[in-house]
């Protein structure tokens, strides 16, 4: 079983092949595609945002025109659109996402710096729980197919898949915060563990449920395949067969499910953040859109867009590492 180590060696040397090309070329190609993709994303978001009715400054109080003019001048909104876009790109290239149109005391960079760690922490923990529990439960169910364990896991995952988070999250608050008073109903508290338990659990449930189902069927399929039968015939111990031979191929569908989901998980769930009053990216995204906070929404779009591109590439690389069929493409 040297393929794994070999693959890593090739990664380090830059000769590792992904989709038939060396890693280094692969990364270059990805960057080559990413830059125009991001540009188009920024361009589209910028103009679509401006096309939405209302502006950052429409409110239930109709400002006198002179005051509106002062506000627009301050944020360059009095300039032609293409010029505003040029200003924006210029600042963007220097890493400046501009001032928030709504939160007058903050720049978008500052808002992102405050909120991103919150979403990433909650998201990463939820992701970790998802992988450990989802894979664990799915494997367990597959190994004990049609036993009470299998049925329990599948019932749980059915419930998890069916119930949306805007039902699960308040339900958890009702049980654990209001009735039992074990855990806080909301807030972040500088990331104390008590405040994280419910949001992480509420967020993970949906993914655990999905991953457990995928893992179960994929594991059953793998265990029935020829190479496992061969391994059994050779008399290898059961544990050895499962962990050394079956787990990796069985994980493939899970990786292809979780890869794209990863960015969604770490960039914050609007529902979870709203229910638990967490100061993360998700709340900013939604409020930003409602407030027509152009710069905040654009900034977040760029960040989430970049992450999506990055992690899609990472998933491709991981796939290459796990799946020999792709790796041996040369």
């Amino acid at each position: 079983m040297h393929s794994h180590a070999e693959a890593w060696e090739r990664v380090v040397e830059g000769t590792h092949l992904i989709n038939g090309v060396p890693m280094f070329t692969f990364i270059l190609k990805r960057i080559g595609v990413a830059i125009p993709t991001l540009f188009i994303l920024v361009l589209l978001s910028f103009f679509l945002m401006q096309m939405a009715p209302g502006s950052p400054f429409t409110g239930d109080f109709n400002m006198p025109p002179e005051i509106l003019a002062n506000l627009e001048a301050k944020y360059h909104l009095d300039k032609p659109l293409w010029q505003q876009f040029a200003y924006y790109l210029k600042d963007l290239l220097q890493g400046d996402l501009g001032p928030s149109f709504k939160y007058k005391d903050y720049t978008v960079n500052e808002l992102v710096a405050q909120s991103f760690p919150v979403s990433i922490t909650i998201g990463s923990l939820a992701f970790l729980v998802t992988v450990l529990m989802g894979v664990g439960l799915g494997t367990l169910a597959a190994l004990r197919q049609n036993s009470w364990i299998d049925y329990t896991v599948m019932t749980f995952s059915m419930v998890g898949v069916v119930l949306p988070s805007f039902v699960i999250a308040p339900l958890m608050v009702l049980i654990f915060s209001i009735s039992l008073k074990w855990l806080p109903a909301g807030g972040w508290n500088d990331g104390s563990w008590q405040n994280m338990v419910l949001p992480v659990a509420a967020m993970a449930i949906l993914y655990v449920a999905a991953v457990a189902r995928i893992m179960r069927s994929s594991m059953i399929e793998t265990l029935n395949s020829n190479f496992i039968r061969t391994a059994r015939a050779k008399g290898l111990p059961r544990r050895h067969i499962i962990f050394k031979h079956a787990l990796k191929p069985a994980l493939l569908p899970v990786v292809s499910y979780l890869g794209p989901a990863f960015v969604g998980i770490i960039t914050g769930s609007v529902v979870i953040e709203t229910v638990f009053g967490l100061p993360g990216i998700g709340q900013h995204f939604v409020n930003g859109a409602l407030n027509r906070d152009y710069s905040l929404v654009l900034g977040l779009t760029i960040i989430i867009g970049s992450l999506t591109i990055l992690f899609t590439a990472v998933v491709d690389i991981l796939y290459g590492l796990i799946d020999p069929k792709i790796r041996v493409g040369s």
Partner: protein
Amino acid sequence: MKKPFKALKLAGIPALTLAASIMAVTNANAAIVPAGTQLAQAQELVRGNGAEPASIDPQKVEGVPGSSVTKDLFEGLVTQDADGNTIPGQAESWTVSEDNKVFTFKIRDTAQWSNGDPVTAGDFVFAFQRAVDPETASRYAWFMEIPTIVNASAIVKGKKPADSLGVKAIDDKTFQVTLEKPVPYFIKMLAHQTTFPVPQKIVEKFGDHWTRPGNMVSNGAYKLADWRVNEKIVLERNSNYWNDKETVINKVTYLPIVSTTSELNRYKADEVDMTNLIPVEHFKSLKKQIPNEVKVTPYLGTYYYTFNTKRKPFDDARVRKALSYAINRDAISKYVKGQGEKPAYTFTPETVSGFVPPTTDYSKMTQGERNAEAKRLLSEAGYGPDKPLKFDLLYNTDEAHKKVAIAIAQMWKPLGVKVTLVNQEWKTFLDSRNDGKFDVARAGWIGDYNEASTMLDLNTSTHGQNDSQFVNQMYDKLMSESRVVTSDEERSHLYTEAEKILADEMPVAPIYQYVTSRLVKPYVGGYPMSNVEDNVYTRDLFIKKH
């Protein structure tokens, strides 16, 4: 604290308010803890605040969430007591020139910033100029234009420099404001955050970062301790506040909880002591379960429908009146809303101080009579079963507005009216309403200061909020006259006439008078039950032993 009475009188504050402030004088700017009350060890309060404030910089505050926080952090020349009466704040007294145009304020010797620096007249000059300076781009710059402070409008329009504003520091503790026209309610307006002082040195040192914890210096009962956007703003007691000895609560935390259900949950989990709102669908059950914690107070605002008078057939007063008459306001208040809202037959709510809105003719009829009159008016205007009136009713997407719209559409049905309900997302809705792209639209207005003009001015032809595009020269004349007259009787008379024009012409159909409803834990003492502007100053509250 005796001087101010003279000052208040001079400032033209109505007699009624004056009497009230005499009664309230012993407990101004402080918590009134009844004798024998056992106070809790930990004097800490958590308040639900509705949303993240757009800013906590007095001149940049935009909405209620920012206003509540700034009112704890800063104090203006005057402030309000728990009942909403105007009382001296940073100014201990003031005098007014005979023509009611020049106001000279004496700032307390004990007025200090939280870093120990004295609050000077210069800080007020700086703040007032900052509010109108185009550089600041304050959304509330108009608040300086309304009382016609000398050159305010010209400065906002960029025609004059900010330092030409009619404000002056005569010496360190004497501040003077000069108005272009006498504005009787000027003193009352000074309890609003736009007129609060800001520490010039600090603002100049830190620029846009001056409102951060660690940088911010304030002159109110509290100072900024912590701020996490979308999570919390924490304020701590300011030991340098001139009346700190009478403050009781040591720490107040504001939570920007947008979802009212989440807020309710956190209240039930004992994480919030005072909510911002009560979710409509839970009101009745909460009223049954915890009646003592449901606090409903009158509010200075009116919920109404506005008719687009520039569109046919709403250019016809008979059509507008018919639709307005047919609204059964009692039913809306009692059954659709049900939180103690009162039916509205005038644009100015009854809660306003210094003016009693008139009993309009149509308010005296029974609903049956009103319905009959509505039918008559509509057929006179040429509409009836053969030629039904068809139009769109526009409101912003929200369950509460939808309920009202459905009920009113039902009430209009017997008139042979065919209404299509149209809802739009908030900003889209505002755009449509501002641009006159509607037939009939939902609206609501909360007064910016406790005086009838804050409502009635809306229907003047040049007002930015005149969505019905109502133009009535007589009405405009009455409202501009009301600024010049000196006696309260004369002013009340003009306002009454203005309300009568509204009842005759019906550019807007008042529906109900707003109330504020909150959940307040029984151990929170001093919660104001009669501040119609809903200014809940934390310095007036205390925590009982529980």
